[in-house]
């Protein structure tokens, strides 16, 4: 998109205007984060830019809310709960989802559309309906208020993401590779683990990240399904927003944003590495 030498003035203006517009939209996308991060250093207990903060007076800032986040059991408990729930839900979603995506990518799958629709349904059914439905049903079978109840529900919510990303990867997957493995004498399991899995790994990982974030950021279902013992970070944030609006929420969010950036960067590096491996040079 470099500007060619023959561009007219109008084109030049538009060229830069377009970039400015895109810049503004991208700014809109991250604007909330730009609010969240500074406010988490607020020395006061409100979500407000205090005059001290605006004057960049050091007194207007403090690490108090971070201290609160890292020491208060009200936050640490949920943090650990989230860390106990999300990975297990992710693992479940990824294991089952990958298996099914591999199945779905085969050439002869009866009722493929219907099956796909069912597997994707947790993504399209409005969350409040899912939450309520699971609440009543899980109560009936004794899963409500249990760790496994939340894990199962979160796994179900994460599965569409795994299915979507892994099937997308499999669409680009060269079937002749698995055939080659078979022709070389490898059975189906071995072919899967040694040939298919390493190659679709980026898709699986990105599906896993989506599943993870789904669970890690989920508040509606867990509030219905969880008992006090399964209180997760978003739940705690939600309570915080309702009962005690405190920038500790923002401190928690900032920590999570930092983690997200790390994860995304890791993903990008992984993708680049994979491209190098496969010899796909960028463009």
């Amino acid at each position, binding site marked *: 998109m470099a500007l060619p030498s023959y561009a007219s003035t109008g084109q030049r203006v538009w060229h830069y205007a377009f970039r400015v517009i895109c810049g503004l939209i991208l700014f809109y996308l991250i604007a909330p984060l730009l609010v969240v991060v500074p406010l988490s250093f607020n020395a*006061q*207990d*409100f*979500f*407000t830019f205090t005059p001290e903060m605006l004057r960049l007076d050091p007194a207007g800032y403090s690490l108090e809310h971070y201290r609160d986040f890292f020491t208060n059991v009200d936050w640490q408990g949920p943090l650990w709960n989230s860390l106990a729930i999300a990975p297990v839900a992710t693992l479940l979603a990824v294991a089952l989802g990958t298996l099914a995506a591999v199945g779905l990518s085969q050439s002869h799958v009866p009722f493929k559309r219907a099956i796909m629709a069912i597997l994707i349904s947790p993504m399209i059914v409005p969350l409040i309906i899912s939450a309520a439905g699971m*609440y*009543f049903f899980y*109560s*009936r079978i*004794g899963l*409500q*208020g249990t760790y496994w109840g939340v894990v199962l529900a979160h796994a179900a919510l994460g599965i569409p993401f795994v299915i979507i990303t892994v099937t997308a990867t499999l669409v680009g997957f060269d079937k002749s590779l698995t055939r080659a493995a078979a022709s070389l004498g490898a059975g189906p399991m071995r072919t899967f683990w040694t040939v298919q899995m390493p190659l679709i790994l980026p898709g699986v990982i990105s599906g896993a990240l989506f599943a993870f974030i789904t669970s890690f950021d989920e508040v509606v279902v867990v*509030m219905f399904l969880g*008992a*006090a*013992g399964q*209180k997760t970070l978003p739940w705690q944030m939600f*309570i915080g*927003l*309702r*009962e*005690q*609006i405190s920038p500790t929420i923002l401190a928690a969010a900032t920590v999570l944003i930092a983690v997200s950036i790390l994860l995304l960067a890791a993903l990008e590096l992984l993708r680049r590495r994979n491209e190098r491996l496969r010899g796909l040079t960028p463009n």
Partner: protein
Amino acid sequence: QDASAELPPCEGCAESMVIMSWGGAYQNSQLKAYVEPYIAQTGIAVTWDESSNEAIAKLRAAQEAGNMPFDLVDVEGPDAQRACDEGLAAEIDVAEVLAPGADGATVEDDFGDSLINDCYVPQIYFSTTFGYRTDVAEWNGATPDDLCDVFDTTAFPGKRSLQASPKKNLEWALICDGVPAADVYKVLEEEGGVERALAKLDTIKGDVIWWTAGAETPQLLADKEVVIGSTYNGRLFSVIAEQGQPVEMLWDYQNFDFDGWIVPAGLDEARMNRVMHFLHFATDTQRLADQAKYIAYGPARASSQPLVSTHAELGIEMAPFMPTNPDNMKNFLVNNIEWWADHQDEVEATFQNWLAQ
């Protein structure tokens, strides 16, 4: 402190409890005043569940599912009434379970009016009242001192925040529409009474931000988003005393209500024993008075009143912030729990429809 000697051992009791409460400062006061001391003495595990906002829904769903995760539920009076009416809460023989007053008063006398039904163990009086900013330029130095100033957007321009619920709002609207406080519920029950209240609310509807959670009004006041707003008096206490915001309270026609415990129906014996053991401890005279050190709510026991002193951390005299302080009680309303229990369904539906219009 001295309670350790009194606390009898608990035979055949469950070793853990799940308590549903409101979270925030209120829950913190409960924690400090009696849950932590109780844990210190018994070593049981206590888990909090901050869903008192949806207490009835949670209880009902849990009951329908036959799987009751909560041992003790903190609810407002009307919810207690409803839970009791619907069989969601167990009946409690307060005389047997609770400790008599430290001054020797019987349980019934000590709690007095707050014992609104057979399921309820009250803890505190709280009131819903208004806070206003003191730095509103447009008011030209005037400050609201009358409930009806809330409805007067010419003298006191600016946004207000009100609870997205008919309770209290309808009563206040009627009072400002000229109904004597004593007749409010009578008028509400009459044909067209609710509509009359709503019509009064219509006059300020465009200036209202509706809140559903107690923390919203303080935040809105602090953000200058509203100039005046209703909330629980304890919340305003923390805005004023702890956060030092330029806010003051308007006590005129503060609306009293109770907050207290109910025990879900159908707990097994071990859990029931534990809950009763805890209630005995947590609602004695000293414990309820202790709670008022952490939050500006009045203890439900008469015998605790004299023990209320200063804030545990700030050292502020708590009395001026107490709804029960005579200075604050020149005009007040008491939430008519029974009337609300009977009429909540229809009034709520009408009100929500009105809101959605």
